[in-house]
Every structure is written in C-alpha cells, then in structure tokens.
C-alpha cells in the first residue's frame, strides 16, 4: 500500500524548462501523535493532486521523459516531525501521511490544501496509533511457518448491505511463525495467510522443489475463501491477539509447456505466469522459472483450478554498476496473449504460450 500511495503522488517535473514556467509553492508542516502530541520522526508525507474533474489530464501527461527529473512530491519528517515539500505546482493537493503502527492518514479523507505561489504551512497533522492483530501460523503438523505473508483486509458494509473488502495492511511471520499486522483503523478484518514468499527470482530463475502437496492461501480460521468469513474485531488502538491458525495444503501438480514467438519459434528467458482471479481477494499467481533456451518451462506446485496462463519477454537493462534490472508487463488474469488452462487431477503437459514482447 505504501508504494501505491507514494506513486499516487508522483509527478514529473521538467528540469529547467523555461518555455512554460509553472508557479510552484512550498508546503511545510509537522506530524504529531493525535493522543500524545509527540512529534513523529520518519513519517512519509506525500501530496496527491485533487483532480478538478475526472479526465482533466494527469500531471505527468505532457512531460517529455528523457529530459525530466523524476520527482515525487514526497518528504520524510525529521527528528522534530517536520516536513517540507518544495516545487509543488499550483492547485489543490491532498496531504497523506504514512507511518508504521499508525492509521494511514488522508487516503480517503478530505485533508486538502490549496497551493499558490508561496509557502503553505499545514497545521499539525495529527495521526492515530492504529490497532493490531497478532497470532501464529503453523503447518498441519504444528511446525511454525516462517516467512508467511499475513494480510488483514477491512470488511466494510456498503449502504445497500453488500460487503466489500479493502486492501489492508500486512505482516510477515518470524522464525516462530508469529505475525503482527499493525496500523489498523478500528473495524472488522478478514485475515488471510499467503504461502511463504518465494526466494526465487522470477527473472533470473531458480524454482521451488516440486512436491505432491503445497500450501495454499488460508483465510482465518481455516478456509480456502471468504464465503463464510469469520472476521476479527480490532478496537481503536487495541491489539487483538491469539489469531492462530494452520495453513491448508492441497494436492499440487506441475505444468509443463513451451514459449514461442508469433512465428512459432521457441523463446528463451520468458517469464511465465498462471494467474487465478479470486475477487474480492487478491489474485493468486504461480510463476515459472524463466523459459529455457529451447522455450520449455515448468511451473511447480500448482493446485487444481482454472488459470489464465501467459508468457512475456522481460525488458532487461544493465546499469553502469554491472547490475541488471528487468521489468515485464502482464501478470493479470485475462491479459494479452493469455490462455485459459485447467489443472485437474494430473500434471499438465504441452501448454503452448505466445510471448508478449517487451
């Protein structure tokens, strides 16, 4: 969620562009704890533009990429809780604050400021210490599960009575299987555990070891989905403990296939995904080691189900330090070039995917 909020505040500002001068202002202020009044160091403060009307054009739309300085309208508070964001174009901006253990501030509220040419001093931004959920995740044999991502999604009831889950906060289990998800607003939360995040790098390869069974997403207290949710209550600033559960595991299969280009030639080094949309929860993604030189790939430990399979060639760049970075488009169910596959009762072989170019 951090990255999402910060990217909301991204704006591309042209460096030294004199042809179209834009009036900019400076926004300063201080972040304090709402209960104690103590200044909060290390909070991330960002500004996101309040659009005058939908479709009025994004800030970044008209800016040439190469000559631009990429700047985000983001600052981190100093030891006194103070922040200062310079170069803010005129207009209406929403102030947002993120800090570990505190409820995300301003994401939905109307904490809006008007920036002209000068300095805008924001009054003390008060943020609330959030509640927390703590517990343990074990496997079926009672062994603590390490490096499990635990997600708490707030359950909101719409006016028409339907239930909606918001993207929430997450935590990771330690060597004892213990987790803590903090910074939660009071309310009802659906808690779910995702199988341990893989060390394996999707671009450069490696693969978990194939197994007959594998752990799958488990919704507290122990179901595959949110059909009968058993939400956890979080009070204002309180910690709900004892959310202990076992990770479910199911029979799993291997998916073998080949990646080709539009002319049918094998493609090596392609990234392959199997994506399963699971609204209202996040999609489940199984990823292969990159395809071999002959285009073959293997996705291990895939449970039974229907998946959208797709392959893409990553854009690989090398920087001057000798480091390599790779990015790829795709990974959404039903994306370009995707093929629907069903894994049922046996390994799947002979899957043929046409790679999306970078």
């Amino acid at each position, binding site marked *: 969620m951090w990255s999402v909020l910060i990217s909301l505040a991204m704006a591309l500002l042209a460096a030294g562009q004199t042809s179209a001068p834009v009036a900019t202002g400076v926004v300063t202020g201080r972040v304090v704890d709402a209960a104690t009044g103590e200044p909060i160091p290390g909070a991330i403060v960002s500004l996101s533009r309040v659009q005058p009307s939908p479709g009025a054009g994004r800030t970044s739309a008209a800016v040439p990429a190469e000559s631009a300085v990429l700047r985000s309208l983001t600052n981190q508070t100093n030891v006194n809780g*103070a922040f200062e964001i310079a170069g803010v174009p005129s207009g209406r901006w929403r102030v947002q604050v993120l800090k570990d253990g505190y409820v995300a501030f301003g994401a939905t509220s109307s904490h809006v400021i008007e920036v002209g040419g000068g300095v805008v001093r924001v009054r003390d931004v008060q943020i609330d210490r959030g509640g927390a959920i703590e517990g343990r995740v074990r496997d079926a044999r009672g062994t603590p599960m390490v490096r499990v991502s635990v997600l708490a999604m707030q359950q909101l009831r719409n006016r028409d009575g339907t239930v909606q889950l918001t993207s929430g906060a997450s935590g990771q289990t330690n060597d004892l299987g213990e987790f803590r998800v*903090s910074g939660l607003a009071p309310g009802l939360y659906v808690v779910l555990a995702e199988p341990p995040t893989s060390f394996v790098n999707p671009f450069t390869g490696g693969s978990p070891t194939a197994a007959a069974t594998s752990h799958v997403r488990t919704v507290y207290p122990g179901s595959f989905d949110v059909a009968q949710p058993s939400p956890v209550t979080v009070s204002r600033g309180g910690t709900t403990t004892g959310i202990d559960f076992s990770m479910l595991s199911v029979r799993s299969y*291997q998916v073998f296939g080949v990646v080709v280009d539009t002319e049918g030639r094998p493609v090596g080094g392609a990234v392959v995904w199997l994506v399963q949309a699971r609204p209202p929860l996040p999609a489940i993604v199984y990823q292969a080691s990159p395809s071999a030189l002959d285009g073959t790939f293997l996705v291990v430990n895939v449970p039974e189900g229907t998946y959208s399979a797709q392959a893409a060639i990553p854009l690989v*760049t090398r*920087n001057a330090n000798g480091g390599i970075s790779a990015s790829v488009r795709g990974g959404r169910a039903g994306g370009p070039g995707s093929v629907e596959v069903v894994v049922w009762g046996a390994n799947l072989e002979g899957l043929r995917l046409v790679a999306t170019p970078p």
Partner: protein
Amino acid sequence: MLSYGRIVAAMVVLLVNLLVVALAAGAQSLTPGTGRIVGRVVDAETGAPVAGVRVYLSGPVSPTAPWPPVLPPVPPQGRQTPATPPPPLPDPSIFVILQRLTSETRADGMFEIRDVPNGRWAVVAQKEGFIANRGLSVPLVEMVAGRTLTASDIRLDRGGVVTGRVFDARGNPMSRVQVRTTQFDKLPGGTIRTTGGSSTVETDDRGEFRLSGVQPGVHYVVAQPPPQMIRLIDGTTPPQAPTTYGTTFYPGLADAAAASPVTVVRGKTTNGIDFSLLSVPAYQVSGVVVDAGGRPVAGAIVRLAPRMPFAPASPMSAASDSNGRFRVTNVPAGTYGLMAAVPRVTRNGGAISAGLGFGDAARPGVAPEVTIQGDTDNLRVVASQP
C-alpha cells in the same frame, strides 16, 4: 540381532532413497550439458527435515582451490583504508547463471536444483531462525553433465536468539531501525577487527526486534537509524534539524570498543536488549554538480555514501536544481564517498521507471571522499557518465 533403532534408521534411509528416485523420475527437458543436484536439509539438533530453506549453488569452485576457502584478512576498522584500485566487475551473465541455481526445500526437506553446469559446486542453505551452513559443513558436489547427484544431508543449527527494543531520544519506540550483532577483536591502539555477526533485522512499529539464528558466542548489538524511505532517485530530503540519529551500540554508545557484550547461547533467547538511538549533530552539505567540462548539471542525484566503520548502510541523497546546486540535509559527522549521476528515465508502455547508475564511483576507493565535521558548502561533484 537388529535393534529397533537400527530398523528405524534403515527405514529412514530407504525412505530417503525413494524420495530421491521420485525426484529423478520427474526429470524433464534437462538443458544439454547440465545435470541436477538433489539433497535434503535437516535440523542439526532434532534431525527433522526443514521446509522452506533457500538452497543455492556457489561456485563453480576451482578443483585446485582449498576448501573451505581461505578468507582474505578483514582490514581493521576504525582507520581509513588506503584507496586501492578495485577489482574488475564480474561479467553480469555469470550473475544470472548463479541466481538461476536456486531452490527451496519442500515439506520433507528435499530440494532439487536443475540445469547445473559441469563443475564443482558448493551447496549453501539459509533459513530464518537457523545459522546458514558455512565452512566444512557446506557440501561440495562435482557435477557431470546429464547426471542427477545427491548432496550429503545439510544440517542446520538454530543457534541463539536476541530480542529487544529501540527507542528515540524522547523515549518513543522507533520503527525500521536496522539492528544486527557484530563480533570483533579489540586491537592495540583502539582499533577493532570485525570477525563475524548476525544478519540485519528491522524494528517493528513498537520498536521491537528479534535476531534469530545467531552464532553462539560473544556479540555486540548495533543499531543504525532507519534508511531514507524515499526512493533513491528521489531528491527530496527532510528539512534540516539540529540533530539526527547516529549509529548506536547497546547499551547506548557511539564507540564500538565501549559497547557491552551480549552472550548468545545455543537454543536460548536473550531478551531485554533495550536501548535508545543516540542523537548526534546534523549538518548540511551543499555544492554544485558539474559535468566533465565544468558546466552545471541539473536534475542530478548527489549521493553521500558513508565510509565510516558501522555507518548506516544506506546513502543520503539530494537532487540538483536548474543551476546544478544541491543540498543534503541532516548529515551526521563522518567520511563519505561523494558521487552524482543523472537518472535515466524509461517508459515501458504507460509505466515510467528510472534507473540511477554511478558507474565505478559507487565502489569504495573510487569516488572522492569528503569528511564532514560541520555545515559544508561549495563542494564540486562531477557527474558520472551514463
């Protein structure tokens, strides 16, 4: 007469063999000229299989080189090491190959690494809560193309655990503080020589940390202030304050040699390592970024990379304005490598990404160094060539 224990042992061996065979039977489309390595990771104390262990191959190890490798002597900390030309960077393709040779153990502790090129490989295993195998406990496997080889069982030791809390100068818990242990020898003349230590963990929202899988022995706990959370390509720095946080040794000292030892015992948890990060004076560092021809460079990111022993790992940075001027705020006293580069912005469809490379300047001993002992102005930094 066979004892009961012997029968169980025989069954266990049989079971392991069956599993290896099962893995071998699953072999598919091995890349020509490569083979496979399978093996098992167990808890050194209980002998139980360990799931979710990251296993990777290191090497290839030269057949003539001694094993375990003799580590080069660590330069003594606490005084400036002379600038020596750094070794050439390895071929990036090697990096990719090494990353590929990675796997994770499944529930029965078994792992499989495919597409292993010929050569002699070291099998390294890591998991939270365990000490990574090292030295003679790292099995060596000699790969011959087309074969499936079985590594000897890797036994991982749990070591000990250290927990505690970190506060700021006002007594409030601090999150995202980087905490680790270090082991060192005190040398005559006040310098110290690092001999080991734990990996690094972050404090949570209550300021709590938990270091697990720590080698038994005498350690010192060191905390470093939270890194700038803003992305590196971002030039915004927090407003200048009179103080900032500095590297702090338990129970609250800047000097490593005066730190209190913490004894880590195998299978035991040492609790209550609670302390506050030190406040240190904060300075402003400003100047101008120029190109090779001396012309100001706008939109460059200036980086101050700490070069002091036990300095925060993360650099501090600021962007240059249209006149090439920059200002880095809240810099603690110390020695820093000084470098600058213009981010390269690329568009991939609708997504914008920016890369920042400082070239050779990013490596110790290449960039000019500057010692900060107060507010510092009029620095000139030459931007790296992209």
